[in-house]
């Protein structure tokens, strides 16, 4: 079981409280998690990754096991702790103040 933590705006958009849990059949990668997440919550399509390129939006970050995984290749395996559900996969709105 994979645990995913979404930022507040996306939890509100997807109507979820707390963590999202996902079951993945294959290797646990960013792409696999995001595909499953968007499959369950289609409203999140385009909010984390670009619709067409599937690249991470610039001000979205991916953290896991206290490390920034934002620049990892999307098909790189994530740590076992994420794959086993011991640690969550965090989707984070970048720390950018804006106005």
């Amino acid at each position, binding site marked *: 079981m994979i645990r995913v933590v979404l*930022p507040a*705006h*996306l939890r509100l*958009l997807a109507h979820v409280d707390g963590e999202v849990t996902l079951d993945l059949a294959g290797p646990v990668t960013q792409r696999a998690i995001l595909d499953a997440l968007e499959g369950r919550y289609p*409203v999140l*399509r*385009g*909010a*984390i990754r670009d*619709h*067409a390129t599937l690249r991470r*939006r610039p*001000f*979205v970050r991916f953290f896991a096991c206290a490390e920034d995984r934002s620049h990892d290749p999307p098909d790189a395996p994530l740590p076992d702790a994420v794959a086993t559900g011991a640690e969550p996969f965090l989707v984070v*709105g*970048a720390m*950018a103040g*804006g*106005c």
Partner: protein
Amino acid sequence: MSGVRALVGTKKGAFVLTSDGKRERWDVSGPYFAGWEIYHLKGSPADPNRLYASQSSGWFGQQIQRSDDGGKTWEPVGNKFVYDGVPGTHQWYDGTARPWEFKRVWHLEPSLKNPDAVYAGVEDASLFLTTDGGHTWNELAGLRKHGSGPRWQPGAGGMCLHTILLDPSEPGRIFIAISAAGAFRTDDAGGTWKPINRGLVSAQLPDPTAEVGHCVHRIAMHPSRPGVLFMQKHWDVMRSDDAGDSWREVSGNLPTDFGFVIDVHAHEPETIYVVPIKSDGEHFPLDGKLRVYRSRTGGNEWEALTKGLPQRDCYVNVLRDAMAVDALDPCGVYFGTTGGQVYASADAGDSWAPIVRDLPGVLSVEVQALP
């Protein structure tokens, strides 16, 4: 008419304000979509309870929200805006060619007759259409693919398509405006487009009378006379009497002819409103006095409307989509400020009062007269 509903988009959410026909007391609900930028909300002329909202965020991109109950509840619909084919390039600020890239929806214009059909004006400038209530969006690519497209350039706010006017007398005729490309018209429902900028003069351009490149801020039209258009350009207030084929300046005695908004009285096609702003470098009212100017002669002769508006120390701006009129009698006029006030006049501009005063910066105001 039983009442009025004002739809207010702000930097941090949407608000719905309602009142009875007297328009003296207002109920404020919201924020909806708190924390998101709501560039625009608008109701369907064919079904006043069908509303659409453009919700966007620098972090999480674009959403389109739809309400079928007048704004009480909302559901996200389609947010996939993909340019048709190879996007091509436009000019960037430094003069280099830059590929078209979708950023956000600035303006939503529901069809006059079909609640499921809505036009969306987007940045980078293009026009999209949904015919299934917002679930899917398709580009009317003839506009972006107009031969002048590679010469378009962003204004300071981005290269946005911000104005969409639907001609009620000719279903295939649509007027749009882009900052900074200018105004365009289609007579075949979006298949082909023609720049309609003859008569515009922009000293900021190498060729001040160029076919495209003008920073048009807003265009307004009275539905009974769709061939007459009024424009607030970057500088200059303009008028066309031939559906945009030619324009003439009608700034007349305005104290400054820079500004963003322009609108037309609901029952008097020659009565128009602007809010003069000091300059492109100083986006606030002249002398700290917030004044609406009204012309009852279709331009050139303007009177200042000040009753109820702050006449000292006022340094807000009024953005291009932040003025609207209602169809009651007398006509109501509304505008929102970057300071979070929404001012309303229930007597066609003679007197004003804030109907809400401490919202986030206002991006857009639309008003519906309810049956």
